[in-house]
């Protein structure tokens, strides 16, 4: 066991920390996270800045524009980003889910075409997996694609597509085969969102913001060369995407949670009047302990999986714990405001930051695979309990 940074890691961390200290001060105001939410162009510029300075795709192979650094440096990147209170690159879906899937399943042409603009943030990606009738039961996808010469003609509807209103590209799962089980009936396609027949309609969330969307597909034509994996192989490609969703994302969530805790501690110290002190102390301790648990669990699973491996089904542990812990923390921060917590926006403390966070965190145990689905995954694939379905 070794718990301190190696010389290489130390150098990486020091260099990154110094760069962030300077860049955050020059690019952002007092509240970078809120500013990034409110101003997409500013976040795009920040993303390009991160890329130009060489902080994006650091673990990728050199041939795809990466730096070939060990996975631990990716974790350090998230830790330092959280420490600096800086927003992450706008292309979260592209970097965390799409890129690893393209690297594993794509051919050379696809990698060369899609990876560089994904890294720079010039092309933002979204995910076209869920449908009104296929949420947790993803295999039930009904969006259909029919072959017409060298093109797929796609008809159907996708939902809960985060960033689709900003996205240039989409990873799309469609049904191409009839009369075979679903895990052999799906095909994975890369869709250019500017293709005729694509309509994006933002869905307003209970927070009032519109982060995700419905995507309607009417006779959308996608070249066969934009398939990832073979025809009918889509389910296996999806599995790659979802494993990365559980693995890489966990590091980002831990770092994000740490930043949120720092902010909550400041808020609670200045404002905690409506709840007893010991309640605050224990709530803060609970969150701090969870930050440590998530951080060390990510490192431990990474160690156990080997340098390049993904944590596999165990990765769901972090997602479950983070979502519930984040919900508890935001609830504590808001409850500490007492009756004034009913106010919102400019009339509320910190311009309503905790009102928004409290409500937004409700989605944490739903997005990216509900807690119930994550538990099913662990029950079946880790504990070896029989399948319920």
């Amino acid at each position, binding site marked *: *066991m*070794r718990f301190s940074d190696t010389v290489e890691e130390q150098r990486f961390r020091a260099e990154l920390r110094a760069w962030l200290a300077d860049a955050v001060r020059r690019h952002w105001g007092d509240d970078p996270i809120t500013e990034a939410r409110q101003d997409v162009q500013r976040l795009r510029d920040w993303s390009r800045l991160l890329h130009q300075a060489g902080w994006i795709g650091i673990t990728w192979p050199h041939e795809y524009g990466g730096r070939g650094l060990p996975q631990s440096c990716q974790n350090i990147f998230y830790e330092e980003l959280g420490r600096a209170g800086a927003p992450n690159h706008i292309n979260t879906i592209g970097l965390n889910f799409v890129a690893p899937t393209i690297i594993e399943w794509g051919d050379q042409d696809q990698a060369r075409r899609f990876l560089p603009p994904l890294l720079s943030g010039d092309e933002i990606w979204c995910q076209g997996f869920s449908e009104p009738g296929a949420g947790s039961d993803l295999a039930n996808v009904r969006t259909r694609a029919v072959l017409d010469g060298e093109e797929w003609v796609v008809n159907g509807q996708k939902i809960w597509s985060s960033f689709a209103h900003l996205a240039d590209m989409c990873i799309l799962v469609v049904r191409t085969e009839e009369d075979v089980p679903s895990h052999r009936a799906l095909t994975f396609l890369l869709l250019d969102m500017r293709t005729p027949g694509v309509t994006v309609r933002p869905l307003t969330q209970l927070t009032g913001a519109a982060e995700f969307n419905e995507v309607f597909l009417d006779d959308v034509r996608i070249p066969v060369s934009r398939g990832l994996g073979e025809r009918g192989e889509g389910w296996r490609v999806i599995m790659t995407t979802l494993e990365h969703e559980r693995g890489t994302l966990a590091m980002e969530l831990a770092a994000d949670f740490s930043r949120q805790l720092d902010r909550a501690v400041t808020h609670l110290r200045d404002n905690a009047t409506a709840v007893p002190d010991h309640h605050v102390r224990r709530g803060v301790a609970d969150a701090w302990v969870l930050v440590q*648990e998530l951080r060390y669990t990510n490192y431990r699973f990474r160690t156990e999986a080997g340098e390049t491996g993904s944590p596999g089904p165990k990765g769901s542990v972090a997602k479950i714990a983070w979502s519930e812990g984040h919900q508890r923390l935001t609830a504590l921060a808001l409850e500490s405001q007492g009756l004034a917590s009913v106010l919102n926006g400019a009339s509320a403390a910190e311009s309503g930051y905790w009102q928004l966070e409290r409500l937004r965190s409700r989605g944490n145990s739903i997005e990216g695979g509900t807690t119930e689905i994550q538990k099913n995954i662990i029950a079946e694939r880790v*504990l070896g309990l029989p399948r319920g379905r």
Partner: protein
Amino acid sequence: MDFSFSDEQHLLRKLAREYLTDRLPPERIGELADRAAGRDSTVDRELFEMGWFGDELGFVDLLVLFEEAGRALLPSAWFPTVAVVRPLLAASDELAEQIRNGRTCTLAWAADRARSALDRTPALPGLVGPGLLTTSRVLVPDLEQADSVLVLGLDAGRLGGLEVDTGAHPEVISRCPNVDGTRRFHDLHTDRTPARRVQLSATGIESLRARLWVALAAEALGVAGRALDFGIEHARTRTQFGRIIGTYQGVSHRLVDAYVRIELARSLVYRAAGIIEEGLTGDPLEIAVCSAAKTRAAGAAVFAAENSIQVLGGMGMTWEHPIHRWLKRAMTLNAWDGNPDTHLDRIGESIMAFST
């Protein structure tokens, strides 16, 4: 960060698991727990022969053994001997040498049941005449199983210790009924009993506590893992309403909840073991990690045992089914040196102070 164990540590775990599975199956644990004296002295001797008393073992090596010992509910004073007594001793003291040769020695610190935390350790009593000790200590772990006891006390602001040979003077042990028969706490009353002043190292209370917490946490991980396995085994095989009950989410998600808590706690415990092995540097957050490891691992053990009992249904509530032994050990670990609220309060205070 690298959380991997060395090949030697993997082997250590494998041998410990094999030995304990063979020598202390649940039926045997039940017999020992229900007997008047819960000691199996042949096991202590065999542990010695396997090198468990060797002082070349680092704390991460011990972590592996604590975890396996907890898994089997090993009833032995080996735990207090290597977890807390040995680090207190000066290398030159004869007890250190005796422990290397397999002697077990437990620790007596509390004078008052209401003040049982290590940081409430009272003054060291004086010896009268030719090294005779008259004192009372309460809640001494594994007292009747140990060869001797180290009475701890403050002496001019520093820790001091007196060793009483309980093997030669068993009359000093005042037996108390315990919830957990595999780790019992008894009272100690000496009355002009021979005692020896022990040379201690410079270890202070804070680092002793941190070490105890992580040792308890490691043991709790083992307890938790085995307790969960009882539930999983049952959920895989038991049929009701024509289906294996593990297919019901009401059942499977309970077990997953326990698994999640155990795995999160495991990461903390391993990290904390590294802190103890490398030595505390005075950073208050290191103490907080050790404290968190203890409270989360012991909490996970109680939670896992309770959920497994729920999954086992009526069978889980019987004396016959062994799961209650694991619940009781978990409750003991949870209560030892600070319950969860005490730990969380302290951590919360230091985090609120640290961030200013």
